[in-house]
């Protein structure tokens, strides 16, 4: 996907980095708590992804703008207060838009504060780059996170309830795999996705014998 080994990263590379090369869910395995807790359906997953992206964007912009003002000693505390402010905004926003969604996501909206992706971006990227670049990077990361959540949520909804976005897929005879929407299902589905990505990465150097590995990788 992205061209490796380039010295000067273009904005496009910066953007793609979060989606593919450093995908927060599948590659860095960060922000697991919300990723597993709320992804029982595709809609919940998208809402959570959008909320996180908003916080990510807002905090990246503000941290980047204030990067020369914040004293080094108290930077982490400052970042957390900035992030908490944006999370409070999102919390009230979701409650105002859809009470149903608000109740489904529950305390996990507020728990975005301690999502390590956001603090990680603020510390590792936004505090060192100009606002434009920080926002692009945050947008990529947010989208990557949303894609990850959607990949989890849609698989769990399809197997666990036989639906996607509430639309039945398999007809009335389908017996839902209830375990998929229960906590163990979350672990299994993410584990299966990681297996798939492991296989993908391992396959590249040794492209000769992928056939027998495929079978193992697709087991959930």
């Amino acid at each position, binding site marked *: 996907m992205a061209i490796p080994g380039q010295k000067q990263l273009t904005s496009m590379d910066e953007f793609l980095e979060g989606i593919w090369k450093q995908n927060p869910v599948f590659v860095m*395995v*960060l922000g*697991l*708590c*919300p990723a*597993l*807790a709320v992804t029982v359906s595709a809609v919940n997953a998208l809402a959570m992804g959008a909320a996180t992206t908003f916080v990510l964007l807002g905090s990246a912009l503000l941290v980047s703008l204030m990067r020369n003002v914040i004293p080094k000693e108290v930077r982490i*505390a400052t970042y*957390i*207060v900035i992030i*908490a*402010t944006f*999370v*409070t905004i999102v*919390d*009230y926003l979701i409650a105002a838009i859809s009470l149903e969604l608000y109740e489904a996501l*529950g*305390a996990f909206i*507020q*728990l975005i*504060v*301690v*999502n*390590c992706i956001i*603090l990680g971006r603020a510390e590792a990227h936004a505090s060192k780059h100009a606002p434009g670049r920080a926002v692009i990077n945050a947008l990529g990361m947010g989208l990557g996170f949303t894609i990850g959540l959607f990949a989890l949520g849609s698989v769990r909804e399809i197997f666990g309830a036989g639906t996607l976005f509430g639309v039945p897929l398999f007809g009335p005879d389908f017996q839902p795999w209830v*375990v998929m929407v*229960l*906590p*163990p*299902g*979350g*672990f*299994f589905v*993410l*584990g299966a996705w*990681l*297996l798939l990505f*492991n*296989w993908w990465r*391992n396959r590249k150097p040794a492209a000769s014998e992928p056939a027998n*590995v495929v079978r*193992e*990788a697709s087991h959930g």
Partner: protein
Amino acid sequence: MADATLGQIFLATVLANNFVLAMFLGLCPFIGVSGRLNTALPMGAATSFVMLVASLCAYGLNWLVTTFELEFLRLISYIVIIASAVQLVEMVLKKYSPALFRALGIYLPLITTNCAILGVALFQTAREYSLAQALVFSLGGGAGFTLALLLMAGLRERLNLASVPNVVQGTALSLMLAGLLSLAFMGFAGLGAGE
């Protein structure tokens, strides 16, 4: 939920609603620190302690915030108080038990961003627990976190001796293990207060 007895709350949070395996709180340290048994135990103990302190502080703060009708400040004040509690624990440990302080190392400050801690504060507010209930809830949460961490560490120490195919190694394997543990813990569903 608010009229559950203390014993029910404790049992339910340790087993049936285990923080890590049923509610997905504190997964980062669960995957990160559960490699070896001898780091898992101090980590669990330190997290439990911070949880207790945070729960106590959050109860007081919640009273303050609701009295003055400043609910929108709740989240910010919680996170600040947790960060200060962690700092306090760090300073006390450094002064009175330098050995333990060194053993915990970087994991100690990282407790601030452990969502299990903020989770305790948020859930006890959402469920309108009394002070005693909140404290028992946080104790149960800490005990459950430590239990999950120990179980996982034991399993992973055994796995080090097994020969695992290349593709499955690493986080994928840990997640599968966690899934099986979580499946086992579902057997406790309905124990204690339940839902």
